[in-house]
């Protein structure tokens, strides 16, 4: 495709400048800031027992979360793709539900269920007549427990997709050659699933590394890097916060790099057309056992959602030592809708999510167009900038913004945004760049590049070609990606807690505040609202995908 290089650059330059300024610059500022005054801050970090503990807890939690997610996700994926049994479809739908909980809401529902005064905890305590709670939902294992619940979905989805694509004739060939089922699993099925498994492991690892909600809410005495960063910032120890942020970001980038290297070594290509034949489980006893186990799993998976819904109807302040909240009311919802102070976070979140998503759609469309349909020397840089926010934990992104947009200095490209409304939409925008750009790219990749040339060859102007050919091609990805971005932005918590002000506080911050005030019902009502928003947009995204598929 030969098109004027000047035209391409005219389009690329604003996007590159914007991304350099908002994505790269704040992170660079953090790294530079960590070396302010030489190595002093780094020495302080290395000497601090709290930081050493935070680093090791972060890594332990991340690795343990990966294993926990694998242990749940892989067998479940095998069970649901390879076997047929009563209740399989229901289980299949419910299995992805944890992904529909915004991270903070998931954490809160676990608190309601398994916390010291949670429903399950109290029920067990009553049942066995114990004097105190049978367990405490604090510490590393509590965090891993929540992570396992919310993140096994990645493993489940990746491995299921891998199994659906799996060429069953390979398994049959191995059987025909005399290999036992175990031998086939070890030598044929698992090796071919490695890309899917590794991809999902990376996702879980990255998410655990940057996880904030779970450690923040039930960390107890546990420190992790993301909470340390916020603590240092609140203490005014910005230098130390910079070092902690750099360490966290570098850990993430290192994990990503390691994964890429391993991926390159793996020469296996996906095996093309899959034809899954589900084996019906014939043993009567096993079918019943599986149906029962399936029902238990389904209940365990939707219990958090149900719990949040139940508590949202509980009257604030009366649920103390009972197993279940004693009084129910619609008051919580009524107050959200009528009390201006309580309505504010909702309108804030929706407005900020809309602004951020609109910006995402425009910028990411241009970036995707340049990445897919144009060849120019700035492409590798653009690709890197678009992917970078994915590799950097949200706390680190937020701290970068806090470090950069806290003063006005035209010569260093700084503007005061911290303390204003705009800092949160900007943070949401940055976090969602990779999501929207990837979706738009994959849509555009299905467009035959010759089509653009053909349209131009037929005499259509650049703008007409754009409107009639390129934008329609990118539309499904932009809509689906945009809806998912809006979902994430509406429930965003991690960057918000670093950057919010009272005036632009989003829903997640208000949930936390209500929880602190022991207004469980109000906190839960907000959470239900979030879940409904998430579900509506996720369904919208899926409808769009199916419509265009």
């Amino acid at each position, binding site marked *: 495709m030969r098109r004027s290089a000047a035209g391409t650059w005219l389009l690329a330059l604003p996007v590159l400048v914007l991304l350099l300024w908002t994505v790269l610059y704040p992170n660079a500022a953090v790294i530079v800031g960590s070396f302010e005054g030489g190595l002093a801050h780094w020495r302080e970090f290395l000497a601090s027992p709290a930081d050493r503990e935070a680093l090791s807890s972060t890594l332990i939690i991340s690795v343990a979360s990966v294993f926990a997610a694998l242990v749940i996700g892989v067998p479940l994926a095998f069970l649901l793709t390879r076997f047929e049994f009563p209740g399989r479809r229901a289980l299949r739908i419910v299995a992805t539900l944890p992904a529909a909980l915004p991270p903070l809401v998931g954490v809160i529902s676990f608190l309601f269920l398994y916390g010291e005064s949670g429903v399950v905890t109290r029920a067990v305590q009553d049942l066995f007549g114990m004097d105190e709670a049978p367990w405490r939902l604090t510490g590393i294992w509590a965090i891993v427990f929540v992570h396992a619940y919310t993140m096994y979905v990645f493993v489940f989805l990746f491995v299921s997709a891998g199994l659906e694509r799996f*060429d069953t*004739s*390979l398994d*049959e*060939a*191995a*059987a*025909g*050659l*005399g*290999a*036992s089922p175990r*031998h086939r699993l070890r*030598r*044929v099925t698992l*090796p*071919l699933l490695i890309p899917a498994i590794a991809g999902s492991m990376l996702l879980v690892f990255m998410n655990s590394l940057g996880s904030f909600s779970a450690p923040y809410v039930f960390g107890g005495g546990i420190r992790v890097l993301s909470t340390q960063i916020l603590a240092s910032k609140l203490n005014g120890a910005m230098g130390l916060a910079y070092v902690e942020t750099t360490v966290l970001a570098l850990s993430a980038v290192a994990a990503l790099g390691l994964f890429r290297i391993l991926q390159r070594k793996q*020469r*296996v*290509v996906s*095996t*093309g057309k899959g034809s899954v034949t589900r084996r019906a489980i014939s043993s009567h006893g096993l079918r019943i056992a599986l149906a029962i186990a399936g029902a238990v799993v389904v209940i365990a998976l939707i219990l958090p959602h149900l719990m949040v819904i139940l508590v949202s109807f509980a009257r604030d302040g009366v649920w103390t030592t009972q197993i279940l909240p004693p009084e129910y009311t619609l008051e919580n919802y009524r107050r959200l809708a009528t009390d201006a102070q309580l309505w504010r976070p909702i309108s804030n979140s929706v407005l900020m999510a809309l602004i951020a998503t609109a910006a995402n759609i425009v910028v990411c469309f241009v970036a995707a167009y340049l990445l897919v349909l144009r060849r120019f020397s700035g492409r590798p840089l653009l690709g890197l900038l678009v992917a970078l926010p994915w590799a950097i934990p949200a706390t680190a992104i937020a701290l970068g913004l806090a470090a950069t947009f806290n003063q006005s200095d035209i010569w260093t490209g700084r503007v005061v945004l911290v303390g204003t409304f705009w800092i949160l939409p900007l943070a949401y925008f940055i976090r969602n760049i990779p999501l929207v750009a990837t979706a738009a790219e994959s849509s555009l990749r299905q467009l035959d590049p010759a089509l653009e040339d053909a349209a131009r060859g037929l005499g259509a102007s650049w703008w007409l070609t754009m409107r009639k050919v390129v934008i329609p091609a990118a539309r499904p990805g932009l809509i689906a990606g945009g809806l998912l971005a809006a979902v994430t932005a509406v429930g965003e918590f991690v960057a918000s807690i670093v950057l919010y002000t009272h005036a632009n506080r989003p829903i997640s911050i208000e949930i936390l505040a209500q929880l602190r005030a022991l207004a469980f019902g109000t906190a839960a009502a907000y959470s239900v609202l979030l879940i409904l928003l998430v579900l509506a947009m996720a369904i919208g995204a899926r409808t769009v995908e199916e419509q265009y598929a």
Partner: protein
Amino acid sequence: MTVRDAAAGTAGSGGTLSLRNIRRRFGSHLAVDDVSLDVAPGELVALVGASGSGKTTTLRIAAGYEQPDGGSVLVGDKDITRLPPQMRGFGMVFQHYALFPHMSVEQNVAFGLEARGVSRKARLEKARAALTGVGLGGAGGRPVQSLSGGEQQRVAVARALVIGPRALLLDEPLSNLDPVLRQSMRDDLSALLRHANVPALLVTHDQEDAFAIADRVALLSKGRILQNGTPAELYNNPASLDVAKFIGRGALVPCTVSDGRAAVSIGGREISFPVLSDSVGHAGRRPHAILRPEHLELADSGASDAWQGTVLARRFAGSSIVYRIEMEPGIIAEVSGTDDRAQIGTRVGVRPRGTPVPVVAE
């Protein structure tokens, strides 16, 4: 029986592979309807049929990937119907070869030996020997994805042969090859399979492939075997009109038979010719003559001993030119000629050469 026992039954010792009254139903669709078939050691039988005829299901039942609803699968006199595939000790070549993409060529070939607990050194040695046997001696260390389609097919064959199978099953082994390669692979495959001296059952939709390499051909339609015989039997003595329609390019024209001669009337002109003696017996109800290109020749338009027709198309076939001629609406014959006088759209005469013509009854 364990895997190792199955392996102990080495090539040639397993006896005849027999399918007895196999039936298989998918929902309301009867995919395989009472199929019986014997394949002797050293014999190559082709199951031929259109897609949906039940040929692949039959093969999968023979291999153990499907269970029949009725009937049995035997090797020699041993019933193996309920034996899972890994216990059967059969070698199978899949349509898309099903080579393990994460293993090298020789690891693929050695896989069946690995499953039988053969030591690493011994199995690689055998794998290399098997690869040499299919003409891929130096390719052992290569990734399978670097091989061409024809090479991949040889690897699949070597992988099936190296375990010393008690029978060989091949699913459309030639359908993924380009035409030139296909011709040469037919000969190679036929030689390899004969050399293995085990029962070999091959499934194909291409009757030319089947005729070229099989000792016997079983023609399958709607789950039933229409005819099971040598290629010459199917060609010269088709059991029914359906068989005749599937095999060879011939015009099927209603005729009357008497005294070893058939008479065909087209466009009001009746011409008679000798009937192939093998096929006379089938000339029962509503006999049809199978007029194939080799039975016919061109004549001048208007010749009194010829039917009249219009040239629809012509095809250069090296030593001859094949004309498609419509003699009556719905009756289209192919005629090979050596001269190229007849142009498309012209009227020509067509007459029997006088060689015996097969006749089939409905």
